[in-house]
């Protein structure tokens, strides 16, 4: 924390902590990646415990109101199961065509669906619990330190999977990290009711209204984008006349600095309150009311580990496959060489940026993500899944969607279970056995599993 006085220390003596449990696979963080990791490790025979600081599973998707899967239809395995269950239980449109770019979902239904999958797999959950430290011996992780209402305790595990979204465990274990200097804007979405969907579809003049409100001081906080949109609308969201509004963000906040996070949460929440009277001047939102700001600010990127393999923009745009791929990804985005869609300085709203983006060539590709992206260098018995796997800055901005995170999680969980079964370090798992298992369990690695002809083009790229 930047304001900390680094000169001053308190010496804490050596200390014995109670060991709460010892498991085969310990999953830290119950977000998109964490759920997939736990479910697949449990299904493959491991005794699995997941630790989540919050009360529910799902992470950024349901808690930051990122209510839309992007490029999900071609991702197989657990992601596919989740979508099927969502569609069967009123959480996503059952009539949506295969191959569609976006699958909007209802965050509350998603939490139910994820819990069902999780519970059925036999994995266990310890919620209300924060993982605070890693226990490393002779270059291998042995377990973690946790904090919760029952106190400070230790959990031991044969394999630990870091799904914290910030590589917390890898960082505490002093695993080498990618260079990371440019946090992308954090976003505060908020849930509203009272939306008139018949009227709100017409977006003409909205950007001008935002501009005018900024000019005359009605939107005075420095957190507003130049327009707003209603993010990922599932049928149930629409029927409830609810919406999740995207239009508030904050720049240059470090996601693993507690002072920055505090400031980001506070300022964007104040921005939400200030936005509401303005929102009610926009056609279709005259009767809108605030239900709640997201329970957690949306963090696009964070520190990422340096793995045995680092995925790059060239891998993605060049449609490269590797013998060790753990899933295949369909990709269609403009080639923004040297810049990302959500730059750190917020310039995505400028005319200049728009022009660059408009002039960029659209690239369609299918590429593979190798297992080495999940395996941190130097530290054994640790795997990483989710948005913090080993990717370059540009690769990350193209391959960090929720479906990607679930695919990473599934591979990590399966590899962890294999490692436990064989009694070896996860980095030594037989990759062919792992890939065969992943294919058997629905991942899209088989020849012809991705039929590009089915891809529905979607030009509105919001993330």
């Amino acid at each position, binding site marked *: 924390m930047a304001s*900390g006085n680094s000169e001053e*220390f308190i010496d804490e003596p050596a200390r014995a902590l109670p*060991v709460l449990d010892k498991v085969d696979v310990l999953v830290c963080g119950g977000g998109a990646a964490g759920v997939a990791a736990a479910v697949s490790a449990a299904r493959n025979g491991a005794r699995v415990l997941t630790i989540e600081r919050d009360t529910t599973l799902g992470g950024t998707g349901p808690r930051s109101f990122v209510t839309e899967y992007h490029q999900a239809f071609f991702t197989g395995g657990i992601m596919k199961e989740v979508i099927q269950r969502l569609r069967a239980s009123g959480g996503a449109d059952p009539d949506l065509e295969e191959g569609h770019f976006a699958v909007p979902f209802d965050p509350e239904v998603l939490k139910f669906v994820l819990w069902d999958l999780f519970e059925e797999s036999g994995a266990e959950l310890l919620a209300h619990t924060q993982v605070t430290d890693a226990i490393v011996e002779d270059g291998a992780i042995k377990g973690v330190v946790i904090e*919760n*209402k029952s106190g400070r305790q230790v959990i031991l595990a044969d394999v630990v999977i870091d799904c914290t979204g910030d590589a917390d465990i890898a960082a505490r274990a002093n695993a080498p990290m990618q260079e990371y200097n440019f946090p992308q804007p954090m976003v505060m979405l908020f849930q509203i009711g009272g939306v008139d969907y018949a009227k709100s579809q017409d977006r003409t003049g909205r950007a001008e209204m935002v501009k005018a409100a900024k000019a005359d001081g009605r939107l005075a906080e420095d957190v507003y984008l130049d327009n707003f949109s209603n993010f990922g609308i599932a049928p149930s969201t629409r029927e409830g006349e609810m919406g999740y509004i995207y239009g508030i963000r904050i720049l240059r906040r470090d996601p693993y600095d507690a002072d920055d996070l505090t400031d980001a949460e*506070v300022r964007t929440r104040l921005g939400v*309150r200030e936005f509401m009277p303005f929102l009610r001047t926009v056609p279709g939102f005259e009767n809108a009311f605030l239900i709640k700001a997201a*329970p957690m600010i949306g963090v696009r990127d964070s520190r990422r580990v340096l793995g045995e393999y680092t995925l790059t923009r060239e891998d993605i745009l060049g449609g490269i496959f590797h013998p060790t791929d753990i899933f295949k990804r369909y990709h269609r985005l403009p080639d923004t060489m040297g810049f990302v869609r959500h730059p750190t300085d917020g310039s995505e709203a400028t005319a200049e940026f728009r022009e660059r983006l408009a002039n960029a060539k659209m690239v369609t590709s299918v590429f593979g993500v190798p297992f080495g992206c999940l395996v941190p260098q130097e530290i054994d018995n640790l795997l990483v899944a989710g948005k913090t796997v080993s990717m370059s800055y540009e690769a990350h901005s193209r391959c960090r969607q929720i479906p990607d995170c679930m695919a990473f999680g599934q591979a990590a969980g399966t590899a962890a279970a294999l490692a436990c079964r064989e009694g070896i370090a996860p980095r030594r798992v037989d990759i062919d056995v792992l890939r065969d298992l992943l294919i058997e369990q629905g991942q899209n690695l088989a020849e012809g599993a991705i039929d590009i002809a089915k891809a529905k083009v979607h030009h509105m790229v919001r993330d």
Partner: protein
Amino acid sequence: MTEARSLQAADKPVEITLPARRTPVYRSVDVLVCGGGLAGVAAAVAAARAGSDTLLVERNVVLGGNGPLAFDIGLTEGSGGISAEIFERLRASGNAAADETAGGALIYDPEALKYACLDLVREAGGHLLLATWVSDPILDDGAVRGAMVENKSGRFAVRAKVVIDATGDADLAVRAGAAVREPGETPLGINARVGGIDFDRALAGSAHWPALVAEAKRAGRLDPRQPDTIALYGITPLARERGIAFVAGPRFGGRQAWNSRDLSVSETEGRKLMRAFLAFLKTVPGFEESFLVDVAGTLALTHSRHVAGDATLADGAPGAAVPFGCLLPQGVDNLLVAGRAASFDPDFYARSGAGIDCAALGDAAGRAAAEAVRSGVTPRDLEAAAA
């Protein structure tokens, strides 16, 4: 695998020793307030207003605590001070209204309470550290001199002249070795917010709800742990306009609010039962079009363990003055306990917990802390001086 599992369980060590470490100091302040519920907010506001350099540490990212997060939204009219100010702000902004289902008792909009708390702390000049877990106290010869905190930045020390434990469960006091009273159980429950309710039709049939629920239980359509009726609450004029109100789900007995396993299990069981109850609700007249807005972000609990203080409130009318000694845990110095974990007799609290004005306790703790800092004495010395 099962075999391997039991082998492993057998070789699980009881303890692991972490090596000695040097923990950097994040900040040195006058008053450290642990927990940002109503008690913690009021404590931080009172201390900051009285001129103390005050830091409020909260594990969540919003203030207001369990009430707004759990949809436990009954509003006790403040007896004065900051408690009354919170009340006044909610009323003035149209966010407090009478609930038809609770005989006209006042309820508040959960989001509005979070904002009111944030505003008050900011206006008072209190510092905030969110998404941060308070870990161990820094102890010096029986006196608390700060606390270790854990967050995305790591483990840090906060030094403080006086510390206020407003965690609701006396977390810091317990770790500092204070004497506590633990009730055998503290019921944990789950609530949800539901939209699309046709209130006129629904309420017209409310006399039949217990029978409908009983019938569904008999027929196996509802789990026996479900509530005995449709516990609908939060019906205000605005709620009627929007068709949105709250439903109380099951309450689990035999559990303890300071036990993480109990919390975790109740959270998942509660949500699952709530989902089933909401499906049942759609078969009840007036609720056919109902939909889930959200399940509460955390469990509802009114009651937890308590410190044994210099004084203990064992009886008294709700709103009665609480002796200062109730905030002073025995066996520890320089620590005040504000909120539901203050020194009440657990039986008394179980009876009248909802009537305890946590913000008033926080207010008193914050003022006392600032006074102790100013006079260079411990909070306990203040009491002695006043006696």
